[in-house]
């Protein structure tokens, strides 16, 4: 159980770093979605199911979709 938690934290940190450092914006947005999803799992572990549901529906779901639409209207690769 506790090992799973540490693994989740590791993925959380890695996804945050990936979201910041990658050149491909789409990858960055997907990493952000993963980040939100893991944070929502942490909310559930902290006995906050309301917040967990809201974060999963808004942070990981709709917010990612909005980012993807914005990237479609602009440019996918980060320019130099």
């Amino acid at each position: 159980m506790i090992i799973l938690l540490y693994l989740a934290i590791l993925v959380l940190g890695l996804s945050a770093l990936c979201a910041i450092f990658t050149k491909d914006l789409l990858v960055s947005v997907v990493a952000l979605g993963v980040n939100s999803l893991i944070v929502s799992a942490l909310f559930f572990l902290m006995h906050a199911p309301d917040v967990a549901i809201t974060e999963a529906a808004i942070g990981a779901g709709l917010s990612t979709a909005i980012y993807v639409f914005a990237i479609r209207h602009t440019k996918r690769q980060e320019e130099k």
Partner: protein
Amino acid sequence: MKKTEFITGSFIALTLVVLLGIFFFQALFQPSYEGKVMPVDNVNLKNRVSLHYVLKNVNNASKYLAMHGMRYFNNRSSVPSQTITYGKSKNLEEGSANEVTSIVVNYRGFDTLGEVTVLFISIIGITMLIGGVVEKKWIKPSLIVRTGSKFLFPFILLFGVYIFIHGHLTPGGGFPGGAVIASGFLLLLLGLENYRFNTKASKVIESLAGLTFVCIGLIGLFTKNSFLANFIPTGTVGLLYSAGMVSLIYVVIGIKVGAELSTGVAELKEGNKND
């Protein structure tokens, strides 16, 4: 040249960030002999105002405060309270089983009105500023995707409605419910290539729902003499028909948020040709 600039910039940012981090942890672990510090591991609900929200004895607490003054703040738990039993306790001052809902909608309902307004104003901003952005061509969805999204849409809608109708009993409520409804519309927008979201109808729904929210507050002001006061009997904790206006407001919020977020997603996807 470019590289050194990048490295120095990152270095400065990193130093700033590390300093801030040290600052954070220092604030968290101060010695407590100088005064109150934030409890890290031994949080006690009895030192916080939410004790009364959980036990639903806010009215008793305000009477106690008026009677005992400063002594109340050192000893919040001596306020008279009762045991609340699921499915049995009747006619409490606030009747929802989900304590978070009772805070969001009833004890701090004014915040929620502001929150709904934040969402409203940002969606208005999106519809205002998106003018002149044209939609790009999407790949035509396959038959499976089209049929699947048509099939799934009613169930997603139903699930969203379920979430906000049961907001005072189970986790969830108006905001996640509305978000689920919006994701149903998102599925339609992505899955059917010639689906057009009816922005005008959703605007009307949104406006009327917002007006209903304020009107519920105003009814409280005119009948119970205070804005957003509960004017419906609260019933038994745990039943669907309980919690007075809480469930009513959460239904309104769910409809409003659903309409708003769907409008926002649709506008962001399709753009708006006429400026």
